[in-house]
């Protein structure tokens, strides 16, 4: 397997991004929301890693930290041999070009007062791509064709387009600077099913054509199964399971992954009427439970879980943060 040999394009090690909670008369920091709390993950070049989890688990924060829209408090973000977490300002600028993003709400991601042409050309201008405006316009037309839009629409404004078309414009804007990695944060979640299929196909085509790597952040397991090569499951700021998609979906090692898979409504007529697999509500990321973070909702909880925090155990080609996967036996 080639990805075992070549180093991954992006490797995140021990990423911690906390948000302060302020209170008291002097607005001092009295606590932290641990949005990302020791996250490790790797995205191979030209492949897709899906980061999946429920709302508030910190998956978007991981994406935003990689894009350096948030400042991580600890951890390393290795991209092509350079630690992005330590860069700032001018030093970071060239890497902006190589990592791009596509967001959930294409209506909010486009400036309502900017024509499509200018929106797509914005990044080219910042990185000096294209010798002059005419050349950039030519490139914008080419990009619009690549995302299957009519180049004649480049003089339009975002509100004149449908949701799916706007998402295509966002993709074109990201492609304009020739990135190697695109962070897709719930990029198809807000779209209707028929449009979602179009965008997923487009993303797959572009990956083939350009050898793009995707970090695909989503809560939709069906989408993960369809698009990803590997999947990382996140719960309360930590990656609880990671591995190749086929293995994780077929043989989930972590109880949370099992719960997620079982909770997703299925189209299988026979699967109707199962009881809900995961009980209760997720705890607050400001005050995560001690020990294993999932133990308050876990169906397989035992005495060790509330006491110790499980490390990542190797499970085949991936990992799982569950004592059940401890090679030395679950109870110790």
């Amino acid at each position, binding site marked *: 397997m080639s990805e075992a040999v070549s180093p991954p394009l992006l490797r995140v090690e021990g990423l911690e991004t906390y948000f302060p909670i302020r209170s008291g008369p002097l607005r001092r920091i009295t606590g932290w929301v641990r949005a990302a709390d020791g996250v490790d993950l790797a995205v191979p070049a030209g492949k897709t890693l899906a980061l999946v989890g429920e709302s508030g688990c910190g998956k978007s924060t991981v994406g935003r930290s990689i894009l350096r829209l948030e400042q991580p408090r600890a951890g390393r973000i290795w991209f092509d041999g350079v630690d992005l977490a330590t860069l700032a300002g001018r030093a970071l600028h060239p890497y902006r070009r190589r990592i791009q993003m596509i967001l959930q709400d294409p209506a909010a991601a486009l400036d309502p007062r900017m024509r499509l042409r200018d929106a797509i050309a914005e990044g080219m201008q910042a990185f000096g791509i294209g010798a002059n405006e005419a050349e950039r316009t030519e490139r914008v037309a080419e990009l619009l064709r690549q995302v299957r839009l009519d180049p004649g629409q480049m003089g339009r404004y975002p509100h004149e387009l449908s949701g799916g078309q706007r998402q295509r414009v966002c993709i074109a804007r990201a492609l304009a*600077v020739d990135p190697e990695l695109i962070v897709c944060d719930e990029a198809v979640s807000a779209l209707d099913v028929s449009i979602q299929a179009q965008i997923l196909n487009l993303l797959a085509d572009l990956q083939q054509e350009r050898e793009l790597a995707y970090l695909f952040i989503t809560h939709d397991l069906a989408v993960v199964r369809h698009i990803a090569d590997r999947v990382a499951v996140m719960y309360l700021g930590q990656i609880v399971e990671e591995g190749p998609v086929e293995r994780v979906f077929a043989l989930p090692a972590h109880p949370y992954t099992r719960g997620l898979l079982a909770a997703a409504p299925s189209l299988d007529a026979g699967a109707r009427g199962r009881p809900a697999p995961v009980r209760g509500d997720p705890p607050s990321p400001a005050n995560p439970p001690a020990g294993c973070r999932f133990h308050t909702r876990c169906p397989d909880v035992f005495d060790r879980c509330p006491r110790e925090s499980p490390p990542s155990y190797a499970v085949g080609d991936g990992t799982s943060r569950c004592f059940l996967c401890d090679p030395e036996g679950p109870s110790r």
Partner: protein
Amino acid sequence: MEPHVLSNLITAALAILLAAALLRARRDPLWRGAGRELARRRPIAVSVVALYVLIAGLDSIAWVDGHAPGAKAESGTLQGQARSVIDRLFPADFQERSYSAPLATHELYGEEPLLHPGKHLLGTNMIGQDVLHLTLKGARVALVIGGLTSAIVIPLALLVGVSAGWVGGRLDDAVFFVMSTLASMPTLLLLIALIMALGTGTTQVCLALGITGWVGLARLVRAETFKIRELDYVQAARVLGTSELRIVWRHVVPNLMHLVLITFALLFSGLVLSEVMLSWLGIGIDGSWGRMIDQARSELSREPVIWWNLLASSTALFILILAVNQVADAVRDVLDPRTALEAL
């Protein structure tokens, strides 16, 4: 430079600016749509406002005739004084000696025959000036109050609000403190205090109105900048490597302009009405409708009642404010971010 030349230059500059802004707005479909919608909803109010602007504009273009350049003007005569287009609609010696009723042929109290019998459509005032003429000239004063003050308020509020909202931190704390200090002083009292300290006069009154008026808009701009700062398209621009200054210029400021326009429209009538109150307190601007109302007020107790003075000035004021309020309402409906994008 003589005052009328300066005023001509300013008028020309404003006209060019206005034309440029309109041309630019025409190219942007969002603004063009908003303009069309505005004209569709409130055609009468928009025309009335335009009429007032036209009258004020015509009153701002003045020139001196009848003497060679460099010749000394004789003081005390009309010769050598600059007269505006509006002035020229009336005869140069249109002034009477005292009150006369509308279309009267004789003075009200002195019973003397008038210089221009039956020609004073709205009568004359205490010193014999034609009320219609004064009323028309008041339009310019009203627009100067609104316009000059806005010219102080809008750039100041944008600069302060955007920088506080964008930079945040200590700068924001400092700006917030200044704003809350100014805002904690009751508006009318602060206005009076400012004019008492600065002195009376058009510039001073507008400056005072500006100092009391900018905080509201600056707060709005600051809050909106905070919001825009976190929006996806700003984040996207950052990821695309766009510099901070450029993001502010290309993404933040254009998305604040509708707020500025709404505030301007809402602010305008308040400013003109404030001046009326100041006039009554004796610290207003010469030639304003407020002054006319103030002067006319005491005449109501005379016998026979002198009502034309009050009626003319307050009607002119009322129609302008009503039209501006209606336009402001429509502007808000059309441009409000919550409804604007769906409506267009």
